[in-house]
C-alpha cells in the first residue's frame, strides 16, 4: 500500500530524516516509534505531501485516498461536531446527497452524539474522536494518526485504542505516530523505531518477543547513545 525508500529531509543543514526506508501493507496497523524530535512527524508530513522531501521515493497505490488526524486538532470552537464534519465534507467536495448520512455514520463510528454541544465544550478525548471522524470522511484507504492518544487520560486513551481496533477490523490500513509504547503494543501489528531520523530497528507483534516493546525500544535508543 505504501513504500518509502531512502527518505531524506534536512532543515538548515540539520538532518532530520536520513535514508529512511519502510513499507506498510494493506490492512495492517503500522507504528512510527521514537522520542520527541526523532523525525516521526517530518516523515508523516512528507508522506502527506505537506513538506517536500530532499531525497528518496514514496510509492503508494494509484489514486490512494489518505485520511489524516493531527496531534493537536483545532476546529472552529463555535461549531458542533456535525458542523465540523460538514465543513470538511464540503471542502472535500463530498456530494450533498450523501453528505448528511456519511456524517451521521461517522459520528456514530467514533461515539460522538449528534447534538448541539459546541466544540469549545468538547473534552480532549472528544476532540481526538472528532479528529478521527474527519480523517474518515470519504472513506480513505490509508489513515495516518499523529499521536492519537497524546494528552488523554487512561479512559480517553482506552476509548481511542478501542476505536482504532474497530477501524482495523473494517480493513483500514493505519499508520500511527506515537511515543506511548503501551498503546502501540496493544493496537499495532508492526513498527519501526527511529532516532535522529535514522531507523534503529523494526518491531513485530507476531514475533512472540520475550521482551516488551518498551524494553526493545530502550535497548535500541540507548544503544545509539552509547
Amino acid at each position, binding site marked *: 500500500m505504501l513504500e518509502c525508500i531512502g527518505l531524506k529531509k534536512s532543515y538548515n543543514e540539520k538532518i532530520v530524516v536520513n535514508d529512511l526506508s519502510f513499507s506498510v501493507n494493506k490492512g495492517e496497523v503500522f507504528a512510527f516509534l521514537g522520542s520527541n524530535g526523532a523525525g516521526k512527524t517530518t516523515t508523516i*508530513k512528507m508522506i*502527506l*505531501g*505537506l*513538506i517536500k522531501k530532499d531525497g528518496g521515493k514514496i510509492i503508494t497505490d494509484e489514486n490512494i485516498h*489518505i*485520511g*489524516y488526524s*493531527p496531534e*493537536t486538532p*483545532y476546529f*472552529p*470552537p*463555535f*461549531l458542533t461536531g456535525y458542523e465540523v464534519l460538514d*465543513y*470538511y465534507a*464540503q*471542502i*472535500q467536495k463530498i456530494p450533498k446527497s450523501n453528505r448528511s448520512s456519511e456524517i451521521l455514520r461517522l459520528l456514530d463510528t467514533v461515539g460522538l452524539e449528534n447534538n448541539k454541544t459546541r466544540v469549545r465544550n468538547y473534552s480532549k478525548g472528544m476532540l481526538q474522536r472528532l479528529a478521527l471522524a*474527519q480523517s474518515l470522511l470519504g472513506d480513505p484507504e490509508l489513515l495516518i494518526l499523529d499521536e492519537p492518544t497524546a494528552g488523554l487520560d487512561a479512559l480517553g486513551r482506552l476509548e481511542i485504542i478501542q476505536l482504532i481496533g474497530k477501524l482495523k477490523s473494517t480493513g483500514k490500513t493505519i499508520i500511527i505516530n506515537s511515543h506511548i509504547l503501551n498503546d502501540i503494543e496493544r493496537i499495532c501489528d508492526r513498527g519501526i523505531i527511529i532516532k535522529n531520523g535514522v531507523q534503529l530497528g523494526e518491531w513485530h507483534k507476531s514475533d512472540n518477543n520475550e521482551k516488551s516493546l518498551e524494553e526493545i525500544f530502550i535497548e535500541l535508543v540507548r544503544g545509539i547513545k552509547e
Partner: protein
Amino acid sequence: MTIAVTTFKEKLRRKEIYIVSAVGILILLIFGTGSGTLSVDGVAVTDYKVLALILLTVMNAVVCLLSVIMSLSTIPNEYKRKTSHLIWIRKVPQSRYHGELALANIFSGLASEAILFAAVIIFIIKNGRAEELWRLIPAYLIIGVNVSAVCLLTSALSIILPKIAVGAISTVAALAGIFHGLLYSLKDIIGGIGGQLIKYVLKLVPDLHGIQSQAGNLLSGKDVDIHVILTGLLAVYIFSVMIILFKRKEA
C-alpha cells in the same frame, strides 16, 4: 466559499467586533447625538456638508486601520494552528485557501464598516435629511473599496512576512492612503529626500482619501469622480493577484 464563510463567522465571535462597536458608539457621540461639539480654530462646525465629510474621513480612517488589525493574523493563525494541514490533504490549492481567508477578512472589514455606518444614519436623520438615506448604499460600497484594498494588502503580506513587519507596512500604507491628499501637499513643502520619499510612497499606495472623498461627494450631492474609484478597484485587483502569487511553506 465554505472556508471564507466559516472563518468570517469565527471572526464575528471574537473581540474585534466589540472594539468596532465601541468605536462606532464613540463616533455616534461626537457626530450623531450632539453631546459632543466639533470646532476648528475655536469656531463650531455646523455645516452639514462639512460635518458629513469629516464624519466619513474619521470613519474611513478607523475602518481602514481596523481592517489591518483584523486581517493581520487570519492566514498566519491557520498555519500556527496547523488547520492548514487538514486543507492541503484535501487537495485545496494554496491560492484558493489564501483567497478564501482574505475574503473572510474583507467580510469582517465590511461588517465593521456597516456597524460604523450606523453613526452616519443617525447623523443624516438628525440633520433632517432622511430622504437622502439611500445615498448611504453607494457610499458604503465606495468606502468598501478602501476596506477591501487594505484587507487584501494585509492578507497578501501576511502570507510571506512576519506579523510585526505586516503590521508596520500595512499600517504605514493605510495611513499614507488615508492622508494621501495631505502628504501630496507635504511632499512639495518638504522637498529634498523627504519629499522624494513621500512621492514614491504615494505612488505605491492607493489614494484611500480620494476614494472616501467620492463617498463624501455622493452624500453631499456633489459630482463623483469615477476614475478615482477605478484606481481603487485596480489596487484591489493587484492585491488579489498578490494573494494568488504569494506562496507559503509549511514549517
